[in-house]
């Protein structure tokens, strides 16, 4: 069973936009690090 809800922020504050920017930078760093970090396990699809 699952329930869903959606909220929409139409006027994001500067604080929220800064947090998002930080998160995007973290994501890019994760992407850059991918080749240097071994996975814990591998699964065949």
């Amino acid at each position, binding site marked *: 069973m699952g329930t869903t809800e*959606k909220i929409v922020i139409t006027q994001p504050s500067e604080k929220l936009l800064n947090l998002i920017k930080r998160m995007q930078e973290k994501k890019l760093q*994760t992407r850059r690090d*991918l080749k240097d970090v071994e996975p814990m396990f591998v699964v065949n699809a």
Partner: protein
Amino acid sequence: MRISFDILTTSKDSYRVILSSGKDAFFATTDFVSLIDIDIDIVEIDLERLSGNKPTELKTLRLITTKIIKFIKQNKKTVLYYYCDDMSEIVGVTKEILWPQEYRNRLFSLLFERFCKNIPDLELKDVTIQINQVGRPLFMHLITRLEYVPILEKIRNFLLDNYGK
């Protein structure tokens, strides 16, 4: 906490799935930590393509979802958090058709709904947060078991009261 695994497809495409929590996570900022007054992990889901350029097959998405659901079954006191990547394109989908983050958002919601139908013993809630940044929307998802829904409600209300309208 950090768990990472790779998925290799028969067509030789590969993906990395990372589940992580820690002080650098989005909801680990002081504001949110002081808001959540019980011991619960907020775990970020990262999904990255490592190689290949074929559209992601449904069976691969199903496998990823299965692993994530298994994680939340084994780690009850968890809120899963997924930011729909807006920085990399999706094979076969152009911005003129749909923003990549919007595509990921729709796909994630669809997978959640389909998967939940097949696991009646596990009750989950998925909250989609859409942020209308200038010129393009951004999307995040928060998922937890029903007993921790009050935490999602706290986060939702806090976001609306303090981070925008």
